[in-house]
């Protein structure tokens, strides 16, 4: 059992059992407490456990100009203006976008797997709905308020520190949403603390801050908790949610700060938001955070118009950021512990539109990068002539990718998380 767990358990014991546990205790704390004692097994965290990094390419990445079928006439017919003629070949039929030189190198080194034609049945072309489907791993005709990573935290990380999931950014992704939410988010570690030093009595201010943000208040809303259950989104009431967030922030901020202050990247990262995010992830990994899942994002993929230049820039930023991240992890000796997977809510229409861009489509390839990855091409390349409404038909369900990562990398049972089994793919 990890040290952080002791801390959390210790805290909950003192503040709940030591204090007055009454019916006014917020429901989430009560639940946390009971699950702590009911805990049968504990997933190990620490220096050796595997780490998953999820990289969201937001906006719908154009799969066909990422992994290019450069010998297919149908590709050039559909895209007279934006087809890529000279990709970085990986075999006789497919090549990577010319900007993906770093990924091409990783492919040769045996650290890159590409899964082709990933999607789901009855694809939805709304950014928001399709993102939700990917984040919650639901069927297209069902909604689920919890995320696939949230369900992983729920079923496999009970009682662990809130920093078991870390999202770089100011918002928590829906993938982390859970019955018992875990995961912290921040983008600037130096801001991730309560600045009490400016107060006239810093020690008192600090202590005061800790006490009002730690103790479950004897709330005047206590009586209405039951009544509000399931009324506000995500379950529980708003004050419970705020108190939990305050508690998680406070528990994690000392550790995050200590780690990011002492660790420094051994490699130079390019200047982009994505590179900064991955730099921060590498520092947290190197510093020994107990985090199992990191979540980062790169936006701007909604290339409806003048796609050529903008998509090139995105690919270039993605490639250089990933290259620096991999070099960093290798220098740390942590590359073997990390798998990074990309995803985007959908690919784009096969045919270009009248604005030199592409509209929303369906299936697309995704990347998995890591020291322990089994390299190569997986899944079947989708046909460019047998289309559905102008879109590619998926050959691999995205939940097969999730299932592979859960079962073969994080080593946890799939069904409690994805609600049913999916065939796994051999890339991890």
């Amino acid at each position: 059992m990890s040290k952080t767990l002791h801390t959390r358990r210790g805290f909950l014991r003192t503040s709940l059992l030591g204090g007055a546990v009454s019916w006014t205790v917020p429901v989430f704390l009560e639940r946390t407490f009971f699950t702590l004692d009911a805990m049968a097994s504990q997933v190990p965290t620490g220096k050796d456990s595997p780490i998953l990094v999820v990289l969201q390419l937001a906006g719908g990445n154009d799969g066909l100009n990422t992994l290019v079928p450069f010998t297919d006439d149908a590709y050039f017919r559909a895209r007279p203006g934006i087809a890529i003629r000279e990709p970085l070949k990986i075999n006789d039929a497919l090549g990577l976008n010319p900007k993906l030189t770093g990924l091409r190198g990783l492919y040769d080194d045996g650290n890159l797997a590409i899964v082709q034609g990933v999607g789901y049945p009855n694809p939805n072309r709304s950014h928001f709905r399709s993102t939700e489907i990917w984040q919650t791993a639901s069927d297209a005709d069902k909604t689920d308020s919890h995320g696939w990573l949230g369900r992983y935290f729920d079923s496999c990380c009970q009682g662990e520190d809130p920093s078991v999931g870390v999202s770089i950014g100011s918002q928590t992704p829906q993938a982390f949403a859970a019955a018992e939410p875990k995961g912290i988010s921040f983008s600037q570690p130096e801001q991730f603390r309560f600045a009490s030093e400016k107060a006239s009595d810093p020690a008192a201010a600090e202590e005061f801050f800790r006490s009002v943000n730690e103790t479950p208040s004897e709330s005047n809303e206590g009586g209405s908790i039951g009544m509000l259950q399931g009324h506000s989104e995500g379950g529980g009431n708003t004050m419970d949610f705020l108190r939990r967030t305050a508690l998680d922030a406070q528990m994690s901020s000392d550790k995050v700060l200590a780690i990011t202050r002492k660790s420094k990247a051994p490699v130079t990262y390019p200047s982009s938001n994505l590179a900064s995010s991955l730099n921060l992830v590498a520092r947290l990994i190197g510093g020994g955070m107990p985090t199992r899942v990191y979540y980062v994002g790169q936006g701007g993929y909604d290339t409806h118009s003048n796609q050529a230049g903008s998509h090139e820039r995105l690919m270039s930023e993605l490639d250089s950021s990933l290259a620096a991240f991999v070099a960093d992890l290798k220098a740390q000796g942590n590359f073997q512990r990390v798998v990074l997977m990309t995803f985007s809510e959908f690919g784009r229409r096969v045919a270009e539109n009248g604005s030199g861009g592409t509209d929303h489509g369906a299936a697309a390839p995704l990347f998995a990068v890591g020291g322990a990855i089994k390299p190569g091409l997986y899944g079947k390349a989708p046909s460019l002539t047998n289309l559905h409404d102008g879109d590619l038909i998926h050959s691999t369900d995205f939940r097969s990718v999730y299932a592979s990562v859960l079962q073969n990398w994080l080593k946890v049972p799939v069904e409690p998380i994805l609600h049913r089994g999916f065939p796994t793919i051999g890339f991890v």
Partner: protein
Amino acid sequence: MLEPLAKPAWTPAAAAHLLNRAGFGGTPEEIAALHAKGLDGAVDSLLHAGDDSDLFPLPEAAVPEYMDKYRRRFPGMSEQERRKVQNEMRREARQLMDGLRSWWLNRMRWSPSVAREKAVLFWHGHWATSIDKVKDPFAMWQQNETLRTHALGRFEDMAKDVSRDPAMMRYLDLVQSKSGKPNENFARELMELFTLGEGHYTERDIQQAARAFTGYRINQTNRRFLMAGSQHDDGVKSIFGFEGNFSGDDVIGLIAADPQCARFLARKIWRFYAAENPSPELVEALAECYRRSGLDTGALLGTIFRSREFYGPDVVRHQIKSPVQWLVQLCRQMEIPLPGQSDGILRQLGQMPFAPPNVKGWDGGRAWISSATLLLRYNTSGTVLSGANVNFDALIPADTKSCDALAWRLFQAPLPSELNSKFSAYLKDHGTGLAARHDLVHLMMSTPDYQIT
């Protein structure tokens, strides 16, 4: 449903709730004055506060020609010179944008027409466009004015004007959409996010509607809407089962007549002003009211602000403040101007006006709060208080023994007793010197309780 609030329930706390939600809160004196008007008087005074534009001279961005002086220099320039001029242009655009943002935030802070500004904020999140793609401060100002004109008026008029604002035309690629090669971006979001909601149209409706919106262009002289007839597809379209030679305005008319449009918007308006999950019955009642008024947003808000449901225990003090609400309300409560670094604060907290994260606007609710933004709010309130000239003697008299008056100013609700006794103990231990009073206010703001309204 939606019966008016009973007279005895119109308390100072109810008046404070109304001012917080319809506007951006205020001082105890402003709350008392609103309360004295009675419910109907209070609602009317908020929704019919009159035109405040005299108080706010136009921002510099309100000049269409500002980019021309750069463009005129382009012909005959080398690639290198051109790049230099483009950099100058970008720098000026950034300054104009900062000025525009500050102009609008100050309008929220000082305007007597608070309900209109709050509604403009709602509609900005609804018809979301971002300077990051639009790249033209004048267009962002134009759209802001369009939203202000119709904020409390008829939705259909607003929708037609918004579709012809250069900001939207650029943001969702209408300017590139032409007959034979329509761009679907606007047509899709119009139905999915702006009017009907997912599941209430078909992919074919989108493709057909996209044809109706072809030919929308920007007049480069006055930077306003221009219909390029040769690019417009005036053929017969089939939308929602209707056939006709529809224009873009016709499509908006068809949508506005669909009962689902009133339902979709009424729910969204309730969620913004009242609470997250209205019951299906409440949504129907609101939609019926909106429909009957001809989608008149001011009329719907009048009904909402008078209704019993709006003052219910699951509504009052159950909303997480948006970053803009949090900042403007803080300044109004503490009777201080907005801090100079408001832009940076709002960016970090996740609500940069004129730069929503995507076409869906801001998610709102719990999405405002993460471990990072919560700590940032705590720290930022301290910075704002230190940087402002707060008149602490007026807010907490030096001889004060209790925190009640201060708690009313900040929370407008009785505090949980445990929290209250902690604040009183702090006051007792640290005295009522200026520094201690400053710290106390900051600590009161550094609580989960201060994040809700």
